[in-house]
């Protein structure tokens, strides 16, 4: 065999090996195949996405009796080839609604599927009109959704309507300077539906003088219902270069506090100078992620569970230190029971520290 022939054989053999590898590279695993854009395909895609990626199945089974396989079988009976988009949307929303999780949503171009029973099944314990009377007209805006003023009895009152964006160090420094002579601070996060976790952590970092373990978290690291990463300690360090508030704080919560506001509540609860007052928060202890169905609808789901410092799930909310309900007589008189009780609490603390 001459050298030219040897070269050719070598080249052909090498290329044949590559060809085999190339062929294998497109032989994707079956589980990666997409579902079809049919009612049945979309239904199964949604069930499967949730089955592999939702993080609270065991907790929901224990607390709500939700068996995800049984849910599939029950709702599959409502799926038919000729059903309309709207009917399909209704069935799919019904299926994921079984989980009673505010972070579980189905989004189409015409609706936002949700189950907000965690909030709507409970008393509101909040009236924006009444709250606004406490803020008055001359409150100061310290960011998008951050409003404050000093009340007549020398107590600071900060409203945080949303954690959609963080306020800035500069604005907080000005706020704490303005409240430097106040006896205490009321932070009202009622009906705060959450937003950016970093915004909540940033604000909370101004109420501690030392690094505190405020909780733990993990994330899904596989498709099994119990496939979770190791637990990570969630430590919060003080905002070192900013003014920090070490006087008494009362945090007002209701069932409308969800997601980042829920995180803010259990973080603040770890601090000695903070008292939670009001109703249990709405929960939302799983950091959400999203995916898509074959028809383009977006599905959102909880993916990374959080725990408080005692390793309790926070998915069902944070219980307050002092349980309160809005008083009907107060409402008629234009008074906010929560704010009045918080003022009294801080003033009492001055007398009996």
């Amino acid at each position, binding site marked *: 065999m001459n050298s030219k022939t040897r070269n050719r054989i070598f*080249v052909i053999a090498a290329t044949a090996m590559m060809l085999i590898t190339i062929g294998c*590279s497109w032989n994707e695993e079956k589980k990666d195949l997409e579902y079809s*854009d049919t009612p049945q395909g979309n239904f199964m895609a949604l069930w499967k996405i949730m089955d592999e990626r939702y993080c609270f199945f065991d907790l929901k089974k224990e607390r709500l009796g939700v068996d995800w396989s049984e849910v599939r079988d029950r709702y599959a009976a409502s799926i038919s080839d000729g059903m309309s988009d709207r009917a399909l949307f209704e069935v799919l929303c019904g299926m994921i609604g079984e989980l009673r999780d505010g972070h579980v949503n189905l989004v189409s*171009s015409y609706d936002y599927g949700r189950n907000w029973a965690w909030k709507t099944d409970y008393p509101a314990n909040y009236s924006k009109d009444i709250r606004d009377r406490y803020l008055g007209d001359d409150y100061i805006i310290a960011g998008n959704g951050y409003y404050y003023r000093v009340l007549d009895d020398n107590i600071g009152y900060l409203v945080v309507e949303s954690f959609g964006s963080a306020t800035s160090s500069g604005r907080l420094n000005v706020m704490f300077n303005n409240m430097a002579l106040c006896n205490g601070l009321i932070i009202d996060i009622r009906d705060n539906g959450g937003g950016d976790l970093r915004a909540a952590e940033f604000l909370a970092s101004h109420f501690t003088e030392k690094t505190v373990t405020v909780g733990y978290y993990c994330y899904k690291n596989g498709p099994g219902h119990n496939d979770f*990463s190791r637990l990570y300690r969630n430590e919060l360090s003080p905002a070192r270069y900013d003014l920090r508030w070490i006087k008494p704080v009362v945090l007002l919560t209701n069932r409308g506090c969800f997601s980042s506001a829920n995180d803010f509540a259990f973080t603040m609860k770890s601090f000695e100078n903070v008292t939670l007052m009001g109703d249990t928060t709405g929960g939302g202890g799983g950091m959400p*992620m*999203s995916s*898509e169905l074959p028809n383009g609808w977006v599905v959102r789901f909880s993916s990374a569970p959080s725990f408080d410092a005692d390793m309790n799930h926070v998915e069902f909310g944070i219980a307050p230190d002092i349980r309160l309900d809005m008083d009907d007589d107060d409402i008629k008189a234009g008074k906010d029971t929560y704010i009045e009780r918080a003022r009294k609490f801080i003033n009492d603390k001055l007398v009996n520290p």
Partner: protein
Amino acid sequence: MTDSSRCSDLSLSVVLAVLLTVLPVRVSGQQTVWDLPQYKETVSCTSVMAGNMIARDTYLSASRYDGWAVGFENDRWTGYRPYRLFCYGRSYSTLLFSPMNNRNGGGSTLGLGGAYHHAFLWPAISCSMCDLLIGPAVMTDFDVFYNQQNSNNPVNGSGYLAGGVSVDNTFRFRVLRYNMALQASLYLPLAGVGFAPDYDQPYYFMYKDSEYGRALHFVTPFNNKAITHQVALVLPFRGNRFRIGYSIDYYSNRLGGHSRNIGSGMLTIGCAFRYQSKEWAL
């Protein structure tokens, strides 16, 4: 990826592989519009690219996205000392951008992809008609996607740094009185390290805990398949040499429990230059 598209992709691979093997020995042709660089010489071609991109990243979405794409490509050949086994070097780099939509038109994703390959090449066959070069290569490839449907985890990236093999074939021929060259290249990573989040690991946690270790994976052709094909025609035009090509890049991985299938087909057009370079230390 559907059966039909998988089938057509495979067919294309077969055609290109045949080009790599058969053309050098079957077609007669002659010399010199694209010669390999001599020692200390560099042949460089910078091209603009336009084509389309397809991507499916199950970390972000179970849906497949596609759309037009534009980018740049730089292909640089260098001649090392002639007595070395691997006496040629080839650096191939690309940068791509693509705005993509899902098939329902209900969502959009911005994709940014890049690659850098450097191969050390041994001339398995080198004659007036063709040059077939084979050798080890170092390759890196990354893709970042921003899914605008996805409010909570909109961005994901994946990539790898790996060693592999490269095959380059240049076939010279003549049409009428014009000398031309046809080039076909193939890069295949074999082993290295890849980056992809650990299943549903949020980037915020990764950053907060500096937990990047779990996002690094050992990659082999079983969990990280990447192939770059390139076919190019070199044409002389008024003293310059233009290169028109078609470049196909496929990257498919299953790292951290999620899969990614990314492909692009790009038409490239650029100008080739030959110049003396400084002596390489290699």
